[in-house]
């Protein structure tokens, strides 16, 4: 009995996802169609990969809301380079650019110990500004054969990019739980002063999580290109709005030191099923944004309330 209760409380997010999935399949005739299933899995992969990167940042007790802008910038550079240098070099350059974005954001946070939210807010605008400038505010489209080929590889109704996301999540899970680096992140997120006294290289670790997120944001931007074939400076404007709830719902806390990659995996799947269900009930786009904002608000307030509820002020 106790075992069952523990199982339910540990896996409530997967169970909730399953429950919504089943009830949607029963109540809505269009939900469990191959077309919608493919769309659901496609929409998971790009933002899901970025959410894994965001998990690293949150675990370390930091915050970086520039993921949408990094996706836009790297996707624009990727699409501009694609016809010139070919697929693999363009991808490597875009991934490197993502890392550079993370290095810049992390520099201000790790070296000056500035509040991460205000730094990432500034950098978010700067990266988007650069993306808009280099593309002259026009979309860059390209039906490159390699991109087309990747988008057409399917296993059943599931596109290959979804398996890339699962793989990324598993690797991240391995790094976070089985390596010293991953354990150090939990320690730093739990209590940064203790980590400092333990002799951990706090500055390096803080810096590294921003680089990890930059890398995953770039990868997510490229994955997004395999189904959109067009990048613009305004790509992923709703990135933070979509990605933050996925990670927090999964069970990673803003306070740091709590959570994991597998939890984020389930959070991503649950939120995407909810977003998909909203479209199924043909909610207006503006109303959908409002519902998403309210979900984000409730998640933030609940998380912070649970963290601070024993404090008087």
């Amino acid at each position: 009995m106790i075992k069952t209760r523990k199982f339910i409380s540990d896996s409530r997010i997967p169970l909730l996802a399953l429950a919504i999935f089943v009830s949607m399949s029963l109540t809505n005739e269009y939900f469990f169609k191959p077309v919608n299933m493919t769309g659901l899995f496609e929409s998971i992969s790009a933002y899901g990969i970025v959410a894994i990167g965001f998990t690293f940042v949150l675990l370390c007790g930091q915050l970086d809301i520039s993921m949408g802008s990094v996706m836009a910038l790297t996707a624009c550079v990727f699409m501009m380079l694609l016809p010139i240098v070919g697929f693999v070099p363009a991808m490597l350059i875009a991934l490197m650019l993502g890392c550079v974005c993370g290095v810049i954001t992390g520099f201000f946070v790790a070296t000056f110990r500035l509040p991460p939210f205000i730094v990432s807010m500034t950098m978010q605008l700067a990266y988007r500004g650069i993306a808009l400038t280099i593309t002259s505010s026009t979309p860059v489209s390209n039906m490159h054969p390699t991109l087309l080929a990747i988008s057409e590889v399917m296993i059943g109704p599931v596109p290959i990019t979804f398996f890339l996301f699962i793989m990324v999540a598993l690797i991240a899970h391995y790094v976070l739980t089985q390596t010293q680096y991953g354990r150090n992140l939990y320690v730093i997120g739990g209590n940064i002063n203790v980590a400092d006294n333990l002799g951990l290289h706090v500055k390096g670790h803080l810096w590294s999580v921003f680089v990890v997120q930059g890398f995953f944001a770039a990868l997510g931007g490229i994955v997004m290109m395999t189904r959109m074939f067009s990048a613009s400076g305004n790509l992923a404007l709703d990135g933070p709005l979509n990605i933050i709830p996925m990670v927090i719902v999964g069970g990673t806390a803003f306070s740091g030191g709590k959570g994991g990659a597998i939890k984020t995996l389930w959070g991503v799947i649950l939120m995407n099923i909810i977003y998909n269900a909203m479209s199924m009930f043909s909610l207006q786009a503006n109303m959908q944004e409002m519902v998403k904002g309210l979900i984000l608000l409730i998640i933030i307030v609940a998380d912070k309330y649970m963290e601070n509820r024993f404090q008087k002020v």
Partner: protein
Amino acid sequence: MSDVNESKWNKIGGWTRDNTNLLLLIALIIAGALLSENFFSWTNLMNLMRRISVNGVMAIGFTMTLLVGGFDLSIGATLSMCAVLCVGVEKSSGSAALGMAVALSAGLAMGAFNGVLMMVTRGGSGEAFLITLATGMVGTAIALTYCSGLDIYGVNADWYKAIGQGNVATFPIAAIIWIILMVIMQVIIKKTQFGRRLLLSGANKKSAFLVGIDVNAMKLVGFTIAGLMAAVAAIIMTSRTTAASPYSGNGADFDAAIASIVGGNSLVGGKGGMVQVLIGVMIYGLITNILNLTGVDSVVQYIVKGAVLLLAICLDKLNRR
């Protein structure tokens, strides 16, 4: 901290460190004067005042949230929401006064909502950032839903247009409103017991709580004023343009944040005031003016302004060290 044997140069050095913002403003004024011979003409100065007054009113609200130890990213969305509500209600009811009342109460409600959430979470600036990020998204969605994503036109009352366009003896009314609001706020936070409590609760909420100050109520007041100021800014803006767009507040929160922080209001709360707002808003207005005069693209302007903001918070951090 002043030492009796402190040399004159140390004093000057200390003064310079404390007043970097004022020196930056003077440097920008000189740069403006060198760039354009019309810079010091009365017309140009008054135009500048009229243009910066919307951002100035926003910066007052933003500074109030900084002073109580918070941070408000939602005021841009509140500005959009109040602007479309103000013009929309005016258009449908034909009464400008009613539109203003609706806009002001919407701003008040939005600010109070933020404040209540801050009370519930007992948050500092990190919490405030996340909460107002989310309420800002909700506010933008409300504005978009209200006007179905379209611009609204329909301001007809002459007295209403005068708020943004009129002058009193060649001095713009919008700037007068801004300055009066700043004076009122400065008197409240520096000269009254309530204001001292507000600043203390922002500077150190634990000790403020221990001496018997209702810190949560102070947070509520700070955020409510921010919402109200966004509504006032929306009224000034719509009366100047006689139209409202659901996107008009995009980036306005960022502008207010830059102006407020560049002026010298500390990010940790409890330190600053309306003098800093005046200096910061002038600096911001002059930077925008100079960038426009030199023909810099509006997207590149954001990168420049972001760099200025990063520099300002680095300076703030170094001063506190």
